[in-house]
């Protein structure tokens, strides 16, 4: 039996405990431990992703208990794609967050919390069990609240509380959906629920779907439910906001897609849900971009941009659901392309923004005038990532937008995509102009004494930004990967059927 699916979760969990242990016994080695854990986890993730991409889907029964009684995990090509993103994320965030001597309790705990957060995200990605999914979603929530609520940061307690309220409602709704599905089908194993889903009464199916959409909609910031996000990211600070927005959010997108396609069988049973997602996607793009345009704070601006880019992903997803059949593979691949690109671009933006904010000790855009000349590496990475996220050819951001637009059946979403491009150009261009101002204020405040390693951080950020730019010119190679991943979601021949039930010990 291949143990990769479970190792992907267990290694970072053990790692988080280990980091805490090291921190208690020998605090000096905490960063090393965190880096080691991240490396081990990323290696495992890459191995699992490789296995999931190349071979048939990998099934795992924890404790050798087969599906109805035990918990099953699975890695197929679809989850493999997200495992790849997580591999990038954990390693990069560990590298970026190597600190020098911050002894505050938050700084001490955050390393373990990040490892746990990535463990939870990996768990969400590999699990094939609804209740197990719920537990990992909750674990991710708790960790993110801890990362958000920094001590002694004005407003962070309130922001943490707001995020907690949102997460509570989200968790309750997810639990409710799982409960309805469990009571109606008698199982929480995704393949078995998927088998029973077409026979469910329409109203039960619809309510479970609605609860799941709202639950994950809160997490990923669908428009009327996005209010908590900018405030939260602002309070969380840039390094954490990058982790939340670039990686946490994407995994929740994964969970939404997986639930819709797999246990709920929505493309067959409830195609109407994709029209809702289409409208939500367009509203997200317009709201996110226009709010980012009038925003005066860099972090909040990036947060609103995240909200907008969830809209692009949703447009691809909605197109996939509305086409149905094998043509949906292309649309899902487009959505995945944008997901991956946004992960790279947004983490690069947040982390390079971190350096700028750190130097000027303020995240207000007006206070960042002329800061670029003090951190040229960061501003180069920021500009590259901004070019990609605006969608300037030949960057990866352009290619992904291109494919999302290609997947649309109507003209209106395409127009919305175009409008979004122009609006995002306005606010990124404005920030660039202010940051590269030739007449900087006489003296910047002295930077905060505690700093992350600037050179390492700049190198990581530059690598991410260059990857985001280069992905556009390598679209053939990227696309074969994406199509393989999309097939994993759309053709579930590996799972629907007696895959899990019939296998004896």
């Amino acid at each position, binding site marked *: 039996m291949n143990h990769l699916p479970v190792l992907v979760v267990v290694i970072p969990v053990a790692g988080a405990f280990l980091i805490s242990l090291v921190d208690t016994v020998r605090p000096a080695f905490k960063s090393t431990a965190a880096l080691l854990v991240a490396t081990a986890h990323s290696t495992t993730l890459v191995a699992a992703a490789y296995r999931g991409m190349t071979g048939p889907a990998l099934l795992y029964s924890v404790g050798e208990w087969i599906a109805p009684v035990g918990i099953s995990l699975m890695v197929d090509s679809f989850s493999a794609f997200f495992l790849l993103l997580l591999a990038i994320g954990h390693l990069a965030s560990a590298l970026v967050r190597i600190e020098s001597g911050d002894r505050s309790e938050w700084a001490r705990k955050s390393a373990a919390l990040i490892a746990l957060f990535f463990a939870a995200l990996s768990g969400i990605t590999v699990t094939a069990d609804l209740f197990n999914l719920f537990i990992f979603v909750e674990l991710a929530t708790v960790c993110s609240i801890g990362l958000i609520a920094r001590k002694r940061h004005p407003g962070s307690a309130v922001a943490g509380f*707001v995020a907690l309220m949102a997460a509570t409602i989200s968790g309750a709704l997810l639990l409710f959906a799982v409960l309805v599905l469990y009571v109606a089908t008698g199982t929480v194993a995704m393949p078995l629920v998927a088998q029973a889903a077409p026979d469910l009464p329409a109203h039960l199916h619809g309510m479970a*779907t*609605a609860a799941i*959409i709202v639950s994950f909609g809160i997490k990923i910031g669908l428009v009327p*439910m996005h*209010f908590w996000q900018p405030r939260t990211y602002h309070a969380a600070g840039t390094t954490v906001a990058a982790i939340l927005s670039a990686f946490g959010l994407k995994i929740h997108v994964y969970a939404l897609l997986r639930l819709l396609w797999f246990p709920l069988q929505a493309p067959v049973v409830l195609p109407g849900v994709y029209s809702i997602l289409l409208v939500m996607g367009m509203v997200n793009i317009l709201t996110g971009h226009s709010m980012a345009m009038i*925003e005066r704070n860099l972090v909040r601006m990036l947060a609103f941009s995240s909200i907008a880019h969830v809209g692009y992903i949703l447009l691809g997803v909605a197109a996939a659901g509305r086409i149905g059949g094998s043509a949906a593979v292309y649309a899902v691949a487009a959505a995945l392309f944008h997901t991956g690109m946004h992960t790279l671009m947004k983490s690069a933006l947040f982390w390079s923004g971190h350096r700028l904010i750190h130097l000027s000790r303020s995240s207000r855009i007006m206070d960042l005038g002329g800061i670029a000349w003090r951190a040229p590496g960061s501003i180069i990475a920021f500009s590259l990532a901004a070019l990609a996220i605006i969608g300037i050819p030949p960057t990866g951001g352009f290619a992904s937008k291109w494919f999302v637009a290609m997947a649309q059946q109507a003209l209106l979403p395409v127009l919305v995509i*175009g409008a979004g*491009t122009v609006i995002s150009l*306005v606010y990124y261009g404005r920030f660039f102009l202010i940051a590269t101002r030739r007449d900087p204020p006489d003296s910047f405040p002295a930077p905060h004494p505690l700093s992350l390693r600037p050179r390492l951080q700049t190198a990581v950020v530059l690598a991410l930004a260059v990857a985001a730019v280069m992905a556009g010119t390598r679209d053939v190679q990227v696309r074969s990967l994406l199509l393989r991943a999309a097939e994993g979601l759309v053709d579930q021949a590996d799972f629907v059927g007696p895959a899990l039930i019939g296998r004896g010990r």
Partner: protein
Amino acid sequence: MNTLFPFALAIPEGIYFSAFLVFLFLGVILFLNILRQKEGRYAFPAAVHVAAGVLAILARDIMTLLVAWEVLAFSAFILIRGTGTARGRRISLRYLVIQVTGGVFFFFAALLHFGETGSLVTGILVPSAQPFMVAAILIKTATMPVHFWLTQAYPSVELSITPLLSVYTTKVGVLTAAQLIWISPAGFPVLAWLGAGTAVGAVILALLQHEARKLLSYHIVSQVGYMVAGIGLAAGFSAMAATAGMFHLVTHTLYKALLLLVAAQAVHHRGHEDLTRMGGLGSRRPLLLLCGIIGAAAISGVPFTSGYASKYLLKEASQAQPLVTYLLYAASVGTGLSFIKFTHLLFFNRANPPSSDPSKTRAPSMVPLVLVAGITVLIGLFPHAVPGVPRRAFFTPSSLLSALLPLAASALLWMVLKKRLTRPATTVGRAGTGAGGVHATDTRAKPFPGKAHAPGTRLRRGARTLHNLGPQAQVLLFLLVLAVTAGLLWPR
């Protein structure tokens, strides 16, 4: 599926080859000119700008062309924002936004074309993609309703940058139009009409200008109008028109760069741009005078200059649409008038002789001017030497006459309007920049009515306040969305 970015490049043929040569030549010359000016920080964006311009003409697929468009826009953005003033930054951002809007239209067109044909090789676009492409072209070529980005940006940059900017952006738009567009809804040459209208309208506005580079910028708009008219006429009316438009691109790119270089020298000496407060340069700097006259003659279409040849071809091609021809004639009259004014004010006006002795200018600064002027003269004398120009008898009596008539009209008008046109700007006010500009009061003193009443402020504040919702209201919203979603998904 094909690859999205094949990056197919090829050396073009025919008249496009001469355009390629001109792009290359002017790119090198003007880049060296910028380097010579010790504007080191412009070196990188200028090099990128030149490379993008050359890439645009080498591109054999739509995506590469779009890449060239965007790289041109962004490098020009960097060049424009280099002035560093608040106004410069505002203008540069406006420039970038309008350029990328054009790029987005291009994106739509490419998307539709790709969706129908599955190919991105350069060629006439599918009909559904054409309107978007036309919108993109109109923006890129600064055709009349959307010309403002050009006339705002070009005069406000450093003196050595303006010639470089004038070479590529609008010309690449014309190139793209020539390769991708073939539009004439119901037999009506939309682009030809828009181009000819722009040629006339921009000349009228140019006549009202008093700042050297602003005047020349309006002439760019006008001259690009000629080219757009030629491209528009190509659609089913005259196959030669596209070639004529491209030939005009070649000649115009050269003489406009020359004129801008001349203007840069003059402005550099006087330290300001106001033409009415210049003059007397002619006797002090004969070489500059010569270059200026060559440029002015070329743009006015004086026989045996390069502008004459290309305008002759254009008018020849527009025979099928006589009204377009008349509009182009009218524009010629205006152009001639405008450049009589330009030359007069710059070189011959005795009212304001230069205070310092300009003869001490170092010779190298004149090298690019002489080179470009020489080529302009050569093209004018031997138009057939240009690759891709069709075999025509350029210098028949009737064609010479048809070129001289508008010039005579210009000269006549100059006699009548001389006083009015050369009146110092201070008494005229900022006439000509827009409607109602005739008031003598300085309208720049208070450009905005004040921040509190700026439009949209209330909306912005409202939107910001909305995003500070407390947790309870948010929970209420979550439940509301749940109810709505559930209602939509409830089986009927």
